């Protein structure tokens, strides 16, 4: 965050940090999206070109990146649901903190399901 | 230096000032000058309510309200003024409701009312539900509502401008202007806190609504900014102050801190207890017990402590017991004050009694005015164009002891009257010459404070003043204690002349402001003590142990204190007296 009015970092709580995380993950996903559309567009060029580029996604470094990306998407998605509950459910504001921990829990569970499978695919060749 | 010109200038933006502004700004070009932002004013700290005989929940009428006010003030009340206030109370409450004030409601949707100290049915029979309220933040809601209306009406504010002088056509300070001579106001001189610049405001009418002077005491419910500025300015310009020895000590301040716990707590059923768990008010006021007027309750509490029935390790407070009330009821009716107990004392009012002790609360005295808020310069003559309303003024509707809720009423009724009167006067009044050197005295005063290279700290002198006032001029007073206080004040005034502020800057110099404020406090403390020494009786908020009874023969009179500058240039306090206006209630013994 920019520090224009100067001073120390504001010590916000769960609400503020979930907003920061939502913003950061959204930012990351947007740039991935741009790249992803571009690389997929290579299918229009030739099968070889596409396969070369998509092949690079399969190396372990990119595999870890993908894991991070999926984590970002999962958080952004679940926290998005929380934001909507805060917006549209009259009791949402009161349970926002609890809901954030539910979101974090769901992200952990989802990633626990996804990661072994994905990492096995990436590293298992 | 900048100059401005307005038909009406209102000094102070609390309840009285803004209520006046709402009336005057629709009739005349008006400016409101305040040393704070309007919403910071101390009206916002008032809690319990505002009495008016609406009779929404039980039978009531304004005459009973008048009687209670007169009796509560121990018959020193000017009864014509009390009648005006009690009669106009009803419209004052309805006006506020129409402005949007969120009063609590009865099941039928009418403004709800509750009991309050000293307010009774049929001349003292039993406590009556007369106080209109918005939870325990009635003052807050009044202040907010009035400010909201000022925003609506586009009232012009000069925020954080500190008025340091009022300019009159005659110098009254020597006491040489003959009675009957026409004296008028020409304007005020103000100091812009943000820039350190002097501004001169020329005006046909000036309304003082600067509030009280609780900071002459150490233990007080008053804000740090309540330093009696308006009273002291008038005093220094030769205008008398009326009944300043009568200072109200609110019974239930948080022990050791002075933070106010509303009388509404007792209105809702809370009980005062001593260390033996006894409901001691039964002994002092058998009929209405804990809802006796404040002076009586405060004295009873102080007496319990003196006789060794105080609570706590030092046995220096009593307890306010709410534990028999339903938590839901407390939350609905008294949310803020229970929060104060939790925050500042760590006490849970649902289950534990709250330590309380009397705290300096309200100046019954002030600048004498007529019922149209015109300022009197002696017992009969008014200063043309100069008005005062609210705690700064003494109409006198509170006499020697103000009833709870009557302050919020006072600011609304007399604030409105002052606004109308000021605007009316300005319609036809001539402009008076503002001398070129109008600001010279003010500039000299503040520059002397600022430029003194080294000197005593303002804070040290102020602390000593507040301590001597707490020790010697509080609930119980004697000739000895008051004499001690007076000699302390005289010594402190001498030291003040050589004091200096550390902040030498121009911009937002609060150090300098505190220096100026201390000068006001010293002058006012002196008036309080001199008045108290001379009043050899006990009445309302003034209790002399050496003269423990009321003496209507010698003292059924208002004190008029003047600061006269003669010869050596030093001001001395001189006293005069003014008869009390009695219309329908002859003085009786005051029992509850």
């Amino acid at each position, binding site marked *: 965050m920019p520090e224009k009015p100067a001073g120390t970092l504001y010590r916000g709580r769960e609400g503020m940090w979930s907003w920061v995380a939502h913003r950061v993950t959204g930012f990351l996903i947007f740039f991935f999206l741009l790249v992803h559309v571009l690389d*997929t567009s290579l299918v229009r060029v030739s*099968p070889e070109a596409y396969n070369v580029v998509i092949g690079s996604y399969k190396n372990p470094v990119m595999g870890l990146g993908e894991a991070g990306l999926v984590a970002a998407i999962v958080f952004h*998605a679940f926290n998005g649901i929380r934001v909507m509950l805060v917006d549209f459910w009259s009791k949402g504001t009161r349970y926002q903190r609890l809901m954030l921990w539910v979101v974090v829990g769901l992200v952990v569970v989802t990633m626990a399901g996804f990661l072994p499978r994905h990492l096995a695919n990436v590293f298992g060749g | 230096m900048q100059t401005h010109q307005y038909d009406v200038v209102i000094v102070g933006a609390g309840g009285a000032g803004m209520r006046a502004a709402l009336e005057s700004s629709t009739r005349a070009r008006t400016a409101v000058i305040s040393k704070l932002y309007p919403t910071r004013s101390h009206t916002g700290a008032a809690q319990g309510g505002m009495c008016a005989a609406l009779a929404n929940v039980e039978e009531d009428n304004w005459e009973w309200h008048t009687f209670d006010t007169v009796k509560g003030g121990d018959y020193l009340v000017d009864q014509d003024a009390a009648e005006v206030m009690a009669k106009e109370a009803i419209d004052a409450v309805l006006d506020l409701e129409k402005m949007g004030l969120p009063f609590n409601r009865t099941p039928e949707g009418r403004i709800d009312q509750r009991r309050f100290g000293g307010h009774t049915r049929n001349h003292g029979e039993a406590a009556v539900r007369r106080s209109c309220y918005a939870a325990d933040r009635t003052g807050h809601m009044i202040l907010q509502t009035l400010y909201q209306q000022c925003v609506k009406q586009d009232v012009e504010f000069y925020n954080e401008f500190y008025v340091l002088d009022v300019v009159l056509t005659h110098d009254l300070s020597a006491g040489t202007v003959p009675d009957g001579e026409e004296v008028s106001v020409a304007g005020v001189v103000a100091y812009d806190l943000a820039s350190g610049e002097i501004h001169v405001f020329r005006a046909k009418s000036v309304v003082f609504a600067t509030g009280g002077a609780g900071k002459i005491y150490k233990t007080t419910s008053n804000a740090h900014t309540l330093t009696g500025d308006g009273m002291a300015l008038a005093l220094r310009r030769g205008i008398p102050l009326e009944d300043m020895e009568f200072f109200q000590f609110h019974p239930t301040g948080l022990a050791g801190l002075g933070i106010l716990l509303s009388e509404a707590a007792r209105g809702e059923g809370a009980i005062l207890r001593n260390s033996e768990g006894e409901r001691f008010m039964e002994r002092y006021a058998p009929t209405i017990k804990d809802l006796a007027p404040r002076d009586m309750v405060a004295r009873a509490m102080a007496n319990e402590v003196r006789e060794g029935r105080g609570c706590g390790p030092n046995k220096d407070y009593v307890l306010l017991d709410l534990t028999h009330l339903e938590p839901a009821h407390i939350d609905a009716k008294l949310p803020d004050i229970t929060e104060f107990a939790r925050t500042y004392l760590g006490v849970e009012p649902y289950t534990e009694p709250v330590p309380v002790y009397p705290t300096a609360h309200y100046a019954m005295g002030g600048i004498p005015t007529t019922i149209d808020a015109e300022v009197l310069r002696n017992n009969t003559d008014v200063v043309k164009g100069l008005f005062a309303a609210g705690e700064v003024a003494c109409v006198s509707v509170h006499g020697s002891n103000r009833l709870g809720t009557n302050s919020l009423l006072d600011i609304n009724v007399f604030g409105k009257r002052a606004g109308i009167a000021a605007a009316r006067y300005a319609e036809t009044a001539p402009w008076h010459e503002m001398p070129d050197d109008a600001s010279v005295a003010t500039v000299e005063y503040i520059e002397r404070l600022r430029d003194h290279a080294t000197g005593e700290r303002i804070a040290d002198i102020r602390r000593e003043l507040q301590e001597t006032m707490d020790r010697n001029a509080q609930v119980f007073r004697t000739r000895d204690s008051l004499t001690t206080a007076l000699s302390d004040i005289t010594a402190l005034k001498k030291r003040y002349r050589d004091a200096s502020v550390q902040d030498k800057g121009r911009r937002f110099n609060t150090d300098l402001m505190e220096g100026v404020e201390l000068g006001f406090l010293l002058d006012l403390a002196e008036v309080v003590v001199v008045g108290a020494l001379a009043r050899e009786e006990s009445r309302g908020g003034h209790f002399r142990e050496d003269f423990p009874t009321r003496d209507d023969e010698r003292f059924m009179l208002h004190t008029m204190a003047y600061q006269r500058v003669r010869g050596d240039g030093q001001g001395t306090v001189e006293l005069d007296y003014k008869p009390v206006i009695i219309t329908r209630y002859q003085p009786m013994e005051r029992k509850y």
Partner: protein
Amino acid sequence: MATTIPAGPLAAPRSARTTRSRGSSRTNMEMVAWLFMRLSGVLLLVLIFGHLFVNLVQGEGINRIDFAFVGGKWASPFWQFWDLAMLWLAMIHGTNGMRTIINDYAERDRTRLVLKVLLAAAFLLTVTLGTLVIFTFEPCPIGAPADLLPSFCPAS
């Protein structure tokens, strides 16, 4: 008693902002954008999770993805529509999010303008390209090696 410490890298407090420039902005644009973020969010949740599941979890996961896999999917109008919806919704959702971020942190009007032009360009390019690719995609390009193509392509 008092010690002074140089405050180091503290910027000076910023100056007062210019007065509010309201004017013609009392439209419902911001409300529509706000609602869109929530609605598209729900849809994207389904679309993207489906996409991730099919592409990364099912079968051998990521290792399976190649031209043949993509060709196989886009032969079906269902997946064509799926991916198209995902492309559009995600791009509008993301672009609007980026617009907010630019509004928040780009202080100077010029910087804001430049960034917003860049953002609009990226949006147009990506959406146009993606849409074209989905609709003009040829799963069995002539002359490509058969082993790279979906299985349903006629052997050339």
